């Protein structure tokens, strides 16, 4: 056995590689099992020191709470350790490549976080006097300017709280415009490759969703579109189209599509989830788009935060601009004005209503502007180019082994494979994804879009270095070869090395346990009681 200079052994002992002790705690070194706060917190404990003077007078009428709440407290060190331990069971952009197609897991600069926490942004109230927040209006106006220039659109509704909320806003603007024109069309066209939020949004507003067919390459079939429009003449409210689409391809005939839609007195809603591919390369305003939401948490790097908060400003064409919802910042010769109510609107402003209380996701506006200013016009274009370059680099690295449903052609910011390369291997897309976890990667988006079988949608983003991509490609190739060699065990039971093995999702849905409840006290048998 070799020793270091202090005389300590530097090699493993006798046990050998395969021995894994069954630990008393269930922990495995740094990999910790952590109970729920309800299982170790105490109703007496609090980790917040408050003033002793609680007041003795109550003006609560008869509404004072009598029952216990049942919320345990933790002292500060307990809380710190609990949540740090939980955090370590999460995969994150900061710890590895996160190639979730359509989700755009790019680097989240910490400068953005610092800026959003300036007291002048983070500690201002949405309803304090407008005269005390000129800098807030300036920030909103400045971000609006950056968004409008990037998209070449007329107006922007800032307040939607996430992408799906932005879709709702855009479609409400479209509905309002039809109503103002004395029309009431009932149909919204949505291709099958769309995000689920598109049909859900249209349905929420009472529209009937009609599918439009795709060509073999995943883009909209113009002839089919013409036919569908003719079939429903006069009854089409609009089309909801993602461009670049969810197959990672740019709709080449987007202008023809827009023209057809406009001729049918309908509007073109563009799902902007993939705007990050084309910022600085093309502008939605030049494509005939009437409304498009921008996911600030995708394209402009505000953090995903484990599922929100997002932010989904909607840019609008001149035809829809008058219907932008409250509130908005109006630029006048005297400066910026905040318009919060119908009463404050002027000629030509016909807001359809309001999407949310207050002014939207200010905290996200600050982060997005910080990101956009950092990049500037040159950096934004470079970021789009690098995102597309990286996706194509992955494509050519894998296309001989994996299967491209639409042939070997350039993709935009994400590359779509189907599962035909796994045919006869006994390995499914899901298995393959789970095996990636053992290799230290977050899986790509799988089984979406629905238009190809066993879809795997890979979006590396511009944040990855060439070395990181090389290792990723090499790993994917190794997995594919392994699957083709019939090493199914590596896949069927994966992940083996994550904090958890595969979880029983069917069982979870069959009998949902959605909160913690006190376990029943163990039955005391008479024998044990003696």
């Amino acid at each position, binding site marked *: 056995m070799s020793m270091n200079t202090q005389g300590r052994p530097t090699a493993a002992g006798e046990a050998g590689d395969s021995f894994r002790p069954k630990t008393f705690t*269930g922990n495995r070194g740094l990999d910790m099992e952590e109970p*729920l*706060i309800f299982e170790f917190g105490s*109703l007496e404990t*609090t*980790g917040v020191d*408050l003033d002793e*003077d609680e*007041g003795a007078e109550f*003006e*609560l*009428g008869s509404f004072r*709470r009598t029952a216990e*709440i049942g919320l*345990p407290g933790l002292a500060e060190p307990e809380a710190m350790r609990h*949540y740090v331990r939980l955090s370590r069971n999460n*995969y*994150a952009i900061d*710890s590895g490549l*996160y190639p*979730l197609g359509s989700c755009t897991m790019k680097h989240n600069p910490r400068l953005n976080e610092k800026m959003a926490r*300036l*007291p*002048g*942004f983070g500690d*201002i109230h949405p309803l*304090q006097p407008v005269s*005390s927040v000129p800098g807030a209006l300036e920030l909103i106006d400045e971000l609006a300017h950056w968004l409008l220039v990037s998209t070449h659109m007329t107006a922007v509704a800032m307040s939607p709280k*996430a*992408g799906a*909320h932005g879709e709702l806003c855009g479609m409400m603007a479209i509905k309002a415009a039809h109503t103002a024109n004395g029309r009431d069309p009932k149909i919204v066209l949505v291709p099958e490759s769309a995000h*689920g939020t598109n*049909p859900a949004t249209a349905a929420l507003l009472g529209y009937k969703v009609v599918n439009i067919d795709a060509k073999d390459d995943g883009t909209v079939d113009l002839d089919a579109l013409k036919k569908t429009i003719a079939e429903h003449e006069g009854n089409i409210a609009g089309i909801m189209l993602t461009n670049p689409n969810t197959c990672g391809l740019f709709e080449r005939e987007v*202008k023809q599509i827009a023209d057809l839609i406009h001729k049918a007195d309908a509007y073109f809603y563009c799902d902007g989830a993939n705007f990050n591919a084309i910022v600085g390369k*093309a*502008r939605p305003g030049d494509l005939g788009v009437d409304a498009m939401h921008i996911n600030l948490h995708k394209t402009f790097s505000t953090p995903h*935060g*484990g*599922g*929100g908060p997002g932010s989904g400003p909607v840019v609008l064409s001149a035809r829809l601009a008058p219907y932008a919802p409250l509130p908005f910042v109006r630029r006048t010769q005297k400066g910026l004005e905040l318009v919060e109510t119908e009463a404050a609107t002027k000629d030509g402003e016909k807001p359809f209503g309001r999407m949310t*209380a207050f002014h939207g*996701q200010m905290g996200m506006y600050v982060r997005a502007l910080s990101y*956009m200013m*950092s990049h*500037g016009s040159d950096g*934004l274009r*470079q*970021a789009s180019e690098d995102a597309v*370059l990286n996706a194509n*680099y992955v494509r050519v*690295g894998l296309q001989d082994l994996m299967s491209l449903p639409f042939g070997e052609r350039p993709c935009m910011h994400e590359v779509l494979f189907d599962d035909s390369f796994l045919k006869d291997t006994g390995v499914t897309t899901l298995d393959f994804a*789970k095996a990636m976890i053992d290799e230290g990667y977050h899986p790509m988006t799988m089984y979406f879009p629905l238009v190809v079988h066993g879809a795997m949608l890979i979006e590396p983003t511009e944040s*990855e270095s*060439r070395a*990181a991509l090389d290792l990723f490609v090499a790993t994917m190739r190794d997995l594919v070869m392994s699957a083709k060699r019939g090493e199914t065990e590596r896949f069927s039971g994966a*992940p083996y090395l994550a904090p*958890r093995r595969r*979880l029983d999702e069917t069982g979870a849905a069959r009998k*949902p346990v959605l*909160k913690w409840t006190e376990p029943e006290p163990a039955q005391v048998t008479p024998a044990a009681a003696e």
Partner: protein
Amino acid sequence: MRYLPLNDTDRGDMLARIGVKSVDELFADIPEDIRLKGLLDLPKRASEMQVERKLSAMAAKNVSAGSVPFFVGAGAYKHHVPATVDHLIQRSEFLTSYTPYQPEITQGTLQYLFEFQTQVARLTAMDVANASMYDGSTGTGEAVLMAHRVTRRNKAVLSGGLHPQYRAVVEGLSEMAGDKVVSLPADPTGTEDILSQIDDETSCVVVQSPSFYGQLIDLKPIAEKAHQHKALLIAVFTEVVSLGLIEPPGTQGADIVVGEGQSIGNGLNFGGPYVGLFATRQQYVRQMPGRLCGETVDAEGKRGFVLTLSTREQHIRRDKATSNICTNSGLCCLAFTIHMSLLGQAGLTKLARINHANAVKLKKLLSGVHGVEVLNSAYFNEFTIALPKVAADVVEQLAERGILAGLPVSRLEPGNKDLANLLVVASTEVNSDEDRAAFAEALKEVLA
């Protein structure tokens, strides 16, 4: 550019590997005539220091709540958030993670969502809570749509004590979806007759307590009347701290509880991001909008958590989904959960008592100012006063004296003469006796 790892050598080599001469060949699908030739008409890249300077200068023009005596509430509240909260939510593993679609490597997010759901269910005394909505106002809109699904009716009755902007969200959504809304007139004192509005066509009654004006409302008779007509009671709150001291909506008969959770763990942020709390009874869980986290086991029998009941959701059900919502307010939930875990019921109760005591103190001071009338009999940390002058003017004059005094109701309800002199004021734990004294003193001067 500091965020981009590729250098020009990389780019050249990679393009060669791909087999194209320039990156523009990769954009060839974009028709030539719409491809941008030059740069966008925006400034070029900026260093970290330049960005920091520019944004700091903007921020500095705003008066932050912590820098003055501050009494604005009306749906968003200035509270003290422990430093631990902000540290923990900035852990990379929380901040830069996606929605937990791969549960094996996102147990951190899933476990805190499970803790969050349990906390919200207990606070509201409801059976189940979801993993959050965008905020209280959009949550209220979703609650009304859910009630329509449950009852198969489409008429909502909104109390005049509902936050005017919440009302606007519900009205807008309902109008677009072709549903009916009956909105009662503004009700500062909590004396409206809402019972007579409930009939056999009503799907739900939406009542806020504490109301927008601060008044505590007895939900029990409303729940009773609603249930007689097979309608649902949707109970709304904007100040979650109140649940530390007042009877929860769940024990008063609410069927859906929706509220704003910003007060716990989250800063003011000029209105967002916030976190919508949403809870209901077990029998309605499959009609609920939003993400739900559930307990299960893994292949080795270890406890774990997953997103569940997703057959309600848009990515599975598409146009048949219960809602179009996709993201929730993940990180804001986490902030809520951590702050609530630190407080525990012991801390929350105390915090709520201090808030109430501060409001009682403020009420006493302000009601001593000549011409000021307090409109509320029972309230938590907020109440409405009637002034002898237009409230908006008074607020401006107080702002000039360095005091941010509350919300003039007319800002959200313009054109209603009866409301022009009303001011909604809040006093949380952040206000000192000196702050309150300064407010009362300045008000005296302004009204003199």
